């Protein structure tokens, strides 16, 4: 199809560009007019200040000395006398006043490896240097002598004996189910690391305070995580540790926990130097040392009847946590909970374990375990459809959860189930059946010597919104709406804007509740000395959970002001302030009604609600080279009531492209436990020329537990893009790729019958001494 202007352009040329174009598929949106991005003009003019743009006069620069071995005892760190060390400040583990621990879930990861301690991964931080200028710092790095004694390293999570966590969920009678089954299909699926690749590298600037505390300014998603980490390692009080989020150039989970590490490093240096210290990573250091998506091996055994009924699922998930616990138990948990796919099955067992290896610790990345297990689940379903001779669309129509169905943890899906809605919306918009028929005919007619093959594939997914189980109760979020002494309305949360639009939808929600225009509502900066702890900006929780809190807070504020003034809020709030002064309403998280979860047995309502998605991808496979071109992807996503269609589409489009990259070109190879893809020339993400045409369809199945009906959308699109691409590859060439990424090397080997490349996510062994 040729087109002069991209779709939607014509509508945007209309005189009032603020109105969301007619024909956008978002029924029942909250406001017909979506406000423009609050901080958009600043970002568009270069005025927005990211960490490296901030100026702190007299600041020094910091650098990290890192391990070059995967597993070793640290015998010593010596400063070669040939260098003049008087110009440099050195920090080792001995300088840590509090606990040498990066506070998160389990106290196993040190801030710096102590002398005599154990190095557990390549690029692990051993000591820190600071100097007034970068030339001195670069020189100094060369004169640090690290002495180690190498220890044997384990790289394969399947061979590791060190378990980080395990989990089992299930219901029904698995043996009976398999006994009844007329067909049993096995599948093993492997996924490798994926790098978040925020375009802004990790960066933190620490400033020592007169009260002995420290303030850190930088790129992050969770200021209060950093706050807790600073208090623990530096023995600071709540007030002495101040964390201020700078404009953040992307996070995607990669800035959930790692910023605590870099903030601690900067803070330790700043306190010893007595000046601000800038710790700004370059891309090579960021790629080498920071967290990645967990590699996983997922094994499926599925029992079905020939008429298409699903009777038994036995699933085993092994995740590679890397060297330390970080967030692995939670990643595993989410992965396991979603591993069966959005399908009704009477007999299910899902077991999972996260294992330690001597590779850099893995962490959060959009989807957080679900993209891994849902890739496996959907590819398994698509293979079963093939085995049964059924359309993958028809099979999903029969299996998809509906209202009233029960999940493997025994959660009854009482409402807001949109599985069939997104399935039909995606199938309809992509003309799935028509194209599938075309590709089938083309495949049958294909001659040897054909140049390309086209295929179409689909995948469905679900994503629980908010923290798993009793996570939200434990976080105990607090969010506030304030009528300030200056007569303005201000929202106070710790939610960090990183492009997803919190700074736009929060004023929109509060303004809507108060009867004001969004421009009349300000957003307080994400500074721990100003805003309460409304929890981390992760888990697709900000719109649903925190958005819900501020709507409630705004309603209470409105009620109070209107009761006092006997006029509408909009007419009277400034007068109220003149007479009564400022008024702040704090809203504390309260558990969603009828949502119960047992942490011990891991049964009950894993999430208050699930969001649902279905993606259909069309690809072309070059039959000479195995290269895959993803031509277009339709993604239908339900996130309850859509607050801001343009921002919501942005999440679907961006998340889908990350999933496409995950499926095709984002590969990390390792040698000796070290990432080989450690520069942007070698870790590749899609460019605009690689990106498919993306169509986002927003579907609304509101969630009654949230005051605004909204669920989460940030991670959902990531769960379905990759299996849709792999299904399309199979449709094109008749080969199932079980490993991600489905690189041309994997595809061509499968096509020609050559030996497959090594499995993804596994390090090649340590080279022999004396060879490269």
């Amino acid at each position: 199809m040729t087109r002069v202007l991209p779709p939607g352009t014509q509508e945007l040329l209309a005189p009032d560009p603020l109105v969301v174009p007619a024909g956008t598929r978002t029924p029942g949106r909250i406001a017909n007019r979506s406000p423009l991005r609050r901080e958009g003009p600043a970002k568009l003019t270069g005025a927005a200040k990211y960490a490296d743009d901030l100026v702190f006069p007299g600041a020094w620069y910091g650098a990290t000395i890192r391990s070059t071995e995967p597993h070793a005892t640290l015998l010593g760190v010596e400063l070669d006398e040939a260098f003049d060390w008087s110009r440099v400040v050195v920090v080792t583990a001995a300088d840590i006043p509090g606990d040498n621990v990066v506070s998160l879930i389990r106290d196993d990861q040190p801030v710096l490896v102590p002398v005599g301690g154990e190095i557990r991964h390549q690029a692990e931080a051993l000591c820190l240097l600071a100097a007034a200028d970068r030339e001195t710092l670069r020189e100094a790095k060369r004169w640090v002598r690290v002495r180690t004694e190498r220890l044997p390293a384990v790289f394969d999570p399947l061979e590791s004996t060190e378990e980080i966590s395990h989990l089992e969920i299930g219901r029904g009678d698995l043996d009976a189910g398999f006994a009844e089954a007329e067909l049993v299909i096995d599948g093993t699926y492997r996924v490798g690391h994926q790098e978040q690749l925020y375009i802004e590298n990790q960066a933190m600037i620490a400033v020592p305070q007169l009260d002995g505390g420290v303030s850190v300014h930088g790129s992050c998603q969770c200021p209060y995580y950093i706050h807790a980490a600073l208090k623990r390692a530096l023995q600071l009080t709540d007030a002495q540790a101040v964390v201020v989020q700078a404009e953040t150039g992307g996070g995607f989970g990669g800035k959930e926990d790692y910023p605590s590490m870099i903030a601690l490093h900067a803070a330790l240096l700043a306190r010893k130097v007595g000046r601000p210290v800038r710790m700004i990573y370059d891309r090579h250091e960021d790629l080498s040392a920071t967290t990645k998506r967990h590699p996983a091996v997922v094994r499926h055994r599925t029992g079905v009847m020939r008429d298409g009924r699903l009777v038994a699922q036995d699933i085993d998930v092994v995740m590679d946590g890397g060297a330390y616990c970080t967030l692995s138990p939670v990643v595993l948990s989410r992965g396991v909970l979603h591993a069966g796919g959005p399908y009704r099955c009477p007999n299910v067992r899902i077991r999972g374990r996260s294992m330690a290896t001597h590779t850099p610790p893995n962490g959060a990345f959009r989807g957080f375990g679900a993209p891994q297990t849902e890739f496996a689940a959907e590819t398994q379903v698509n293979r079963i459809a093939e085995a049964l001779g059924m359309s993958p669309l028809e099979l999903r129509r029969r299996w998809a959860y509906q209202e009233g169905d029960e999940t493997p943890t025994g959660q009854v899906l009482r409402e807001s189930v949109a599985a069939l809605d997104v399935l039909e919306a995606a199938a309809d918009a992509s003309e799935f059946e028509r194209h599938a028929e075309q590709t089938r005919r083309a495949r049958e007619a294909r001659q040897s010597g054909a140049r390309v093959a086209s295929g179409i594939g689909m995948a469905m997914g679900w994503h629980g919104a908010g923290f798993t189980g009793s996570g939200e109760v434990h976080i105990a979020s607090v969010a506030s709406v304030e009528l300030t002494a200056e007569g303005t309305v201000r929202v106070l949360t710790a939610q960090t804007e990183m492009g997803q639009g919190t700074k736009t939808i929060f004023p929109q929600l509060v303004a809507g509740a108060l009867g004001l225009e969004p421009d009349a509502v300000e957003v307080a900066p994400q500074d721990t000395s100003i805003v309460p702890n409304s929890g981390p900006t992760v888990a697709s929780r900000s719109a649903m959970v925190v958005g819900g809190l501020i709507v409630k807070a705004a309603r209470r504020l409105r009620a109070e002001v209107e009761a006092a003034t006997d006029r509408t809020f909009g007419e009277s709030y400034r007068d109220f302030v003149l007479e009564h002064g400022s008024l702040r309403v704090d809203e504390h998280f309260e558990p969603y009604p009828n949502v119960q979860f047992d942490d011990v047995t891991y049964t009950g309502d894993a999430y208050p609600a699930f969001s649902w998605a279905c993606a259909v991808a069309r690809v072309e496979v070059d039959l000479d080279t195995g290269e895959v071109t993803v031509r277009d992807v339709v993604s239908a996503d339900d996130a309850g009531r859509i607050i801001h269609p343009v921002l919501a589409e942005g999440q679907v489009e961006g998340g889908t492209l990350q999933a496409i990259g995950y499926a095709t070109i984002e590969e990390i190879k390792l040698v000796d436990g070290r990432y080989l893809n450690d520069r942007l020339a070698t870790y590749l993400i899609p460019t605009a020329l690689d990106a498919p045409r993306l169509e986002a369809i927003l579907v609304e199945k509101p969630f009654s537990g949230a005051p605004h009906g909204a669920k989460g959308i940030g991670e959902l699109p990531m769960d379905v893009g990759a299996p849709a691409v792999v299904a399309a590859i199979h449709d094109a060439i008749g080969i199932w790729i079980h490993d991600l990424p489905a690189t041309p090397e994997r595809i061509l080997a499968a096509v020609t019958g050559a030996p497959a490349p090594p499995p993804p996510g596994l390090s090649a062994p340590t080279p022999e001494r004396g060879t490269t």
Partner: protein
Amino acid sequence: MSYRFSVNGDPVEVEVSGMRRLLDVLREDLALTGTKEGCGEGECGACSVLLDGAVVDACLVPICQVDGTSVRTVEGLGTEQQLNDLQAAFLETGGAQCGICTPGMLMAAEAFLAAGGPATDDSIRDAIAGNLCRCTGYTKIVEAIAVAAERRRAAGSDPD
């Protein structure tokens, strides 16, 4: 050594080492932090600026080669109170999310628009192929550039 050039129309003189990157001169010596460093190896395009009208990665240009040239950065396009038409289009379509790729993306788009060729989906994507974006999937960026192209074309053919 002394190097003289213009930045966004203003004459500038800096006394720095010749191999100092244009990116560092802009950000540190001239305090123009709108241009960003994403990789330092010419892969991401976040540091894109116009050098005598051509879009280049400022992380790969030594200042000794900038002597006598005209440099344009994002700061020269518009202000928060007065966005230029391209910036306004990005704002309306949602073409900027986290914003870190945006300055470089805008400069690549400006170079494309200035060249005046047809603004098709393919030609726009080709023009910004050197600017990585991780947030948007590029869809709304392409839309924004197409809108701006159409508005400039319409303004150009406006009899007024």
